[in-house]
């Protein structure tokens, strides 16, 4: 300790020293004054560590209002002193007077090295790792919504029972959860949460509703229960899909829905996917044109589902047979509906009616041309394709070989 202090002192004297001429006179160059200024007060030794840390990581109040620093608070400072004691360090040593008494009995204890402690470093790092750090809320992967731990897409259980009537086998999913403001005469800008949710039993019975409340939890509950009060019955084709392709719209949102064969799955906007799961539709392709406003999508889709016609209705309206051709049955005609009155049906129709055109209400889906990736016409890609060509059947051959051994 002493030696260290002394060294510091000497250093300082040297820095501020003035070259003094020696007693014996020797002709000298002019006196040179070397003066180094040092300032010992600074930002770092004036403020406590806490303030310094906050100054680096936090955002000012004004900044916060503008939406800066959303991630602050996730990282906390680590106390590096924890787990360390004076006298015990990298070098395991006996320091008399620091970590051991100076005199034991009649003996004067000398400085001496001890066996190296390999565990110490590891333990300290382990302790530091366990400190602080932001922990995500534990959420089972199955319960996750569309994105992280956010509400949209997440299940909030069946609506609450009304009297003795329980909503068995119902499930509610949040579609939208957002903050909305209104102006009040006495309170000014008032903040509320708006929740759009859809509930259904997975078997053709479903409802949706929007509810607002100052608290998220209340809004969720209100929305869920209100959806339970607004149930709509939707007929499912073969208990898995829609009866026919249809066009539907609400506001600027236009949706084209297509009936798909078994095993196709749900290929559509995530909101429509969620609704389909709740309603019980398993195979569907939907294309949205125009606005993707969530509330409009939901409303348009429900309107479309409700407006579906049965094959018999279509056959009666057009006076034509409705026939299905399945590729799985070798493309043989299967009659789905026979018109009630067959008078004049044998005349060729004055115009050719396409079934899809009829059900889509003469709307045509916008089919955009796919833009080829930038590398398609490059030399490297051509070479790659040439090299790959010989492996084009490899996966098949490999599979067959594995099967047949």
């Amino acid at each position, binding site marked *: 300790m002493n030696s260290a202090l002394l060294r510091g002192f000497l250093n300082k004297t040297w820095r501020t020293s003035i070259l003094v001429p020696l007693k014996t006179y020797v002709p000298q160059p002019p006196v040179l004054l070397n003066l180094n200024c040092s300032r010992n007060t600074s930002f770092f030794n004036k403020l406590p560590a806490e303030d310094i840390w906050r100054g680096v990581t936090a955002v000012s109040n004004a900044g916060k209002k503008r939406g800066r620093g959303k991630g602050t608070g996730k990282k906390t400072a680590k106390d590096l002193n924890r787990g360390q004691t004076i006298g015990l360090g990298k070098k395991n040593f006996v320091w008399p007077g620091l970590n051991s008494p100076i005199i034991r009995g009649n003996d004067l204890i000398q400085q001496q090295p001890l066996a190296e402690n390999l565990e110490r470093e590891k333990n300290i790092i382990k302790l530091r790792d366990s400190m602080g750090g932001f922990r995500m809320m534990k959420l089972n992967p199955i319960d996750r919504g569309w994105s992280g731990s956010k509400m949209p897409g997440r299940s909030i259980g069946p609506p609450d029972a009304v009297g003795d009537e329980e909503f068995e086998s119902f499930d509610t999913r949040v579609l939208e959860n957002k903050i909305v403001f209104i102006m009040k005469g006495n309170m000014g800008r008032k903040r509320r949460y708006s929740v759009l949710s859809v509930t259904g039993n997975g078997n053709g019975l479903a409802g949706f509703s929007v509810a607002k409340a100052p608290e998220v939890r209340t809004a969720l509950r209100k929305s869920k229960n209100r959806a339970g009060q607004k149930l709509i019955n939707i007929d499912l084709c073969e208990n898995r899909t829609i009866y*026919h392709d249809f066009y539907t719209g609400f506001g600027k949102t236009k949706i084209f829905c297509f*009936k*798909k*064969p*078994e*095993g196709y799955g749900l290929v559509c906007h995530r909101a429509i996917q969620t609704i389909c799961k709740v309603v019980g539709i398993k195979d569907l392709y939907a294309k949205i044109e125009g606005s993707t406003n969530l509330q409009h999508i939901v409303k348009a889709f429900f309107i479309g589902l409700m407006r579906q016609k049965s094959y018999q209705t279509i056959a009666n309206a*057009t006076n*034509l*047979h*409705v*026939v*299905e*051709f*399945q*590729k*799985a*049955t*070798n493309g*043989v*005609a299967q*009659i*789905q509906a*026979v*018109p*009630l*009155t*067959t008078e004049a*049906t*044998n*005349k*060729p*129709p004055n115009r050719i*009616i*396409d*079934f*899809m055109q*009829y059900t889509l209400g003469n709307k045509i889906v916008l089919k955009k041309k796919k833009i080829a990736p930038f590398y398609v016409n490059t030399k490297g890609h051509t070479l790659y394709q040439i090299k790959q060509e010989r492996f084009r059947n490899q996966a098949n051959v*490999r599979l*067959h*070989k*594995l*099967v*047949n*051994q």
Partner: protein
Amino acid sequence: MSLFRHIRSLNALQILRPGRRHLSTASLQYDQDPQPLFTDAETQSLLQSMTQLQLDKVFRKRTVPDNSTEMKFMTPDQLEKEFVQAIEKARHLLQMPPIVKVKVDTERLISKDAALKDFASTKYVFTDITYGLPQSERKVVVRESDGTLAYANLETVKRMNQLYFPLEGRKSYIPRMFTDEELLKSALDTHKYEFILDRATVQYEPYEPEFHNILSRVFEHLNESKQFDLLRSTRHFGPMAFFYAWHRCIDDLLYDMIRRDYLHNAAELIALSYKIHKIPLDYRSTLEQISALRSTPAEKALEDLRNSIQAPEERQRVGGIEQEIHLAIGKTENDFASDEICLKFIEQYIASEHALKKVQLELAIQTLKEVNLEKLQLFKGLKKAHGVNVN
């Protein structure tokens, strides 16, 4: 890369394996050339009639890569065309694989050029790959390393054909189910008869001994498990009936037909066995009588299709109550009449020395007679009640 290595090592093992494993041979084999009898027009019509044409079964749902559906509007005229096409397609799907005799490989030398000896260390195979030739006419010759030029053997010809003009579904190696006794047995035990037969038909040519062997194995197993209905309305029912008739073991199939009330089929089966074994009994007159009373399977299927598009009120107007009664009972007067003729013919067979399981067949006939009598009474009663004249 490790997978590559694995496959390569497996391939090496396969090459090293001494000789291909073979299935055990079936006990029943065709002793003469069955082809003339099988392709005979009369036999074919009998087999087709026995096969029946159940559209639901022919066009049942299968696993396909693209199972999409298409909806269409159609006028009755368009539908009629569609029905005719469907029947045509069904008949095409039910075309029977031919039963021909096993071809024996013969060595056919073209020339022996001693001067060309050791021209190369390997054989050379030359294949005529002219477009549009049938497989049987494609010339394949082999130049041996000792200078001999000869026509290739059947195996090489088949291999070359598959190489240049691949048949969909046929593999260049033999599927394991046809080399591994246990696999074939497990397939048979789970009654996957159609699958086995379909695959054998694709994999083998009809003249190959393996094809005959597999067919016999399947039919023998079927005769024991008695699941004949699995093959009804498939292209393999005809060859199966032919096989039993040839080897004088039709009784189980006959019993099954009687039990399911396919009496005309039973009569046809007996007639076929008479025909094959040249038994001096007149079966042609009986067959003529039956065919006069009954429509062919294709005609019947087309009729059913046409009826299916009639609106309920129209059905009332056209066929009236008579058709309703026929639908309810499932038989018409003609059917009852043909049943009478068939029963006589079958009883004659059972009484003869050709039937082996007499007691069982007699019992089945007796039960059927009682059921039919009840149906007939109900049929007549219904007609009377509705005021339709009974003949």
